[in-house]
């Protein structure tokens, strides 16, 4: 199709579409240019830059679709790509595409773009979803507040696209150059001072450069070094002085003040639910993230959620009911009887109903001990996830870590992921040198049990609250240690852990159900076969005498930890999986041969063990047998060593629970 040439030949103009990931930039791009950029419901779809010819009558321009970016301060590679377009593109028009229903999370970037002096149109996309939620935005008011044109669109249906095109035409005719900023008064004098020292030429307004400098943007610093080398020192002084005026980083202070401004605007233009966001939920959300209030909140959540619900109710009441009542009372006697009738050979019968039989041990552990505990744990976890507490917890941990000089960014996703393959992926992705990779693997092997394992270990300790506290303390120490080493091993330059916060809300039953069941299903698929397999293996070991030999040779080790020698069986299980070992401890505790100190020492040791056989295999694949054996040996020695010291310490001071 021939493109309509404008009557008089104009210079080609340049228009860029920018905005958060997954807001519909590419879809808008397709509407505007008639070309096709990949659209998918997945943030980060556009990684490169798409260019097309603008299909708007009377305007000769090239449109550029960019990867998503959250703010002018870029963190990821894709964001840098998008930003370089903004900074070097000599753009005639920037269209900020935003998600209309999340106006409050979109506007900070709009303000940044306005401050930077870009000729801007704000395109509030997903207007259809806005309508569905009975929300609306007062467009005229917003235009007045921002001083730029605002268009509401629904790119999927094409609604509003013609208005967008009309605004582009209007823009083409007018000369648009505004000076507006939303800086809080407190910063204005500092910014002015910096600005007065910026004499060179820059791609964006100098007060925006000044603001980027305050936020320690690396690229801005480089520009200023190049363009204003003479006054660079003076500028540095100004910034350093400004830093002393605030307790937080300037980046944070600026973001905070911008957020306040956004809240004011949103309250003004948003009609519907979101306008009363400064209510209790918002306050609670803030408290959760501030160390001073957040840590006590966390303690309360852990006390009721983990200790009371998972430990006491799941590990106590439910296990008693299912294990003590159902299995010991009915199922096991029935099975033992049954198998006595159908299998006359004792050895063979033991495979199923012996002391470590597939049914009496494998199935019983899986169904009667682990299921109630893990079920309760997953239920608790699903509520945490669905309420929106989890990301706030991440922010809290990050802040606490940062306060004590650790790199939260490296550890938090791993910690919160509680995943199994985390290690392999994280390690291969982030780190460059072999040394770093090995260290990271070691850290993960040591530190991160999957969530279910943690749940079971915790339930074992629940009857002894003070022992539980000590365990928490030891693990917390371990964490800090890991964080410290991780900071050393993963010196990523990603300083800030930025996350958009979902709203706080009351957990929905259907979501909680789905999450809990998904986790249970995952766990059972993974663990049940292993429990059965372990029972079979033990049986083979018993028949051949290897099992007795192993148990026997572990006895001195176990006794060195101050534990009764019967505990060596549980430790042997622990080599398979930490939770299998913990279930063994549960049994021993039921039998009444473990003291509180014993349990604590055993749990700490188990927590530090390699998580499971699978992890061992992953390590072997990643690093080869030699390193894997090395790491395993190290972890083992460290785990036993910690247990040994802890026992000596507790016995030494005469502690009992």
């Amino acid at each position, binding site marked *: 199709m021939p493109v309509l040439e404008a009557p008089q030949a104009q210079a080609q103009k340049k228009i860029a579409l920018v905005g958060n990931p997954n807001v519909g930039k590419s879809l808008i791009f397709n509407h505007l240019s008639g070309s096709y950029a990949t659209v998918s419901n997945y*943030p980060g779809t556009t990684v490169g830059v798409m260019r097309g010819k603008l299909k708007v009558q009377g305007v000769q321009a090239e449109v550029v679709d960019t990867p998503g970016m959250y703010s002018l301060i870029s963190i990821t590679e894709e964001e840098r790509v998008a930003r370089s377009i903004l900074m070097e593109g000599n753009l005639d028009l920037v269209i900020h595409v935003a998600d209309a229903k999340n106006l409050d999370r979109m506007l900070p970037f709009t303000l940044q773009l306005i401050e930077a002096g870009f000729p801007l149109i704000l395109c509030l996309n997903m207007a259809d979803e806005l309508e569905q939620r009975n929300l609306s935005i007062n467009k005229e008011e917003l235009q007045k507040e921002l001083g730029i044109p605002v268009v509401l669109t629904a790119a999927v249906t094409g609604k509003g696209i013609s208005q967008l095109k009309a605004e582009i035409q209007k823009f083409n005719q007018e000369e648009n150059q505004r000076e507006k900023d939303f800086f809080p008064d407190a910063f204005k004098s500092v910014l002015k001072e910096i600005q007065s020292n910026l004499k060179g030429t820059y791609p964006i307004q100098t007060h925006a450069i000044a603001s980027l400098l305050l936020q320690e943007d690396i690229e801005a610093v480089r520009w200023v070094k190049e363009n204003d080398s003479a006054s660079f020192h003076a500028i540095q002084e100004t910034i350093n002085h400004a830093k002393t005026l605030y307790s937080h980083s300037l980046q944070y202070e600026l973001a905070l003040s911008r957020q306040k401004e956004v809240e004011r605007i949103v309250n003004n233009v948003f009609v519907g639910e979101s306008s009363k966001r400064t209510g209790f939920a918002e306050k609670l959300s803030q408290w959760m993230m501030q160390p001073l209030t957040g840590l006590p909140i966390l303690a309360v959540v852990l006390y009721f959620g983990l200790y009371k619900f998972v430990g006491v109710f799941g590990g106590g009441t439910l296990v008693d009911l299912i294990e003590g009542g159902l299995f010991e009372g009915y199922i096991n006697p029935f099975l033992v009887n049954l198998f006595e009738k159908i299998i006359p050979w004792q050895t063979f019968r033991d495979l199923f109903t012996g002391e470590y039989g597939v049914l009496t041990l494998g199935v019983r552990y899986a169904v009667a001990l682990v299921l109630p505990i893990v079920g309760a744990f997953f239920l608790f976890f699903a509520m945490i996830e669905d309420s929106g507490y989890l990301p706030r917890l991440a922010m809290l941990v990050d802040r606490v870590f940062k306060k004590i000089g650790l790199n939260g960014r490296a550890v938090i996703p791993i910690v919160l992921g509680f995943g199994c393959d985390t290690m392999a992926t994280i390690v291969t992705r982030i780190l460059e040198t072999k040394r770093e990779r090995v260290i990271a693997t070691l850290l993960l092997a040591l530190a991160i049990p999957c969530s279910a394992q943690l749940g079971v270990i915790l339930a074992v300790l629940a009857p002894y609250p003070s022992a539980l506290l000590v365990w928490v303390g030891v693990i917390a120490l371990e964490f800090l240690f890991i964080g410290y080493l991780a900071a050393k091993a993963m010196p990523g330059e990603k300083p800030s852990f930025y996350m958009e916060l979902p709203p706080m809300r009351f957990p929905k039953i259907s979501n909680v159900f*789905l999450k809990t069941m998904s986790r249970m299903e995952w766990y059972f698929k993974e663990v049940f076969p292993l429990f059965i397999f372990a029972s079979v293996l033990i049986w083979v070991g018993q028949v051949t005498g290897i099992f007795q030999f192993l148990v026997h040779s572990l006895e001195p080790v176990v006794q060195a930890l101050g534990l009764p020698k019967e505990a060596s069986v549980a430790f042997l299980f622990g080599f398979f999986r930490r939770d299998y070992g913990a279930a063994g401890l549960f049994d021993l505790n039921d039998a009444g041969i473990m003291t509180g100190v014993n349990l604590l020492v055993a749990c700490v040791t188990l927590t530090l063990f390699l998580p499971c056989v699978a992890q061992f295999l992953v390590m072997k694949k990643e690093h080869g047998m030699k390193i894997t054996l090395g790491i395993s040996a190290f972890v083992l020695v460290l785990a036993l060593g910690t247990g040994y010291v802890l026992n000596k310490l507790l016995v030494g001071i005469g502690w009992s629970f």
Partner: protein
Amino acid sequence: MRCTLCYKEFDEVEARNHCSACFLTSGCKMIKCPNCDYEMPVESAWAKKVINFFKRKKGKKHVSH
């Protein structure tokens, strides 16, 4: 599906590609958010069916009212 940590919607197939570096992917029942690296289990198919069943039932009631 939606990530439970960062709340971003993502495509499960894409997310799988994301962790192709890990050799456990073929049997792995965990899925990793491409945006924030948080790991969560793949959504259980039968549990989804149960929820849909109840939702439909509720929906019908609404219609009949």
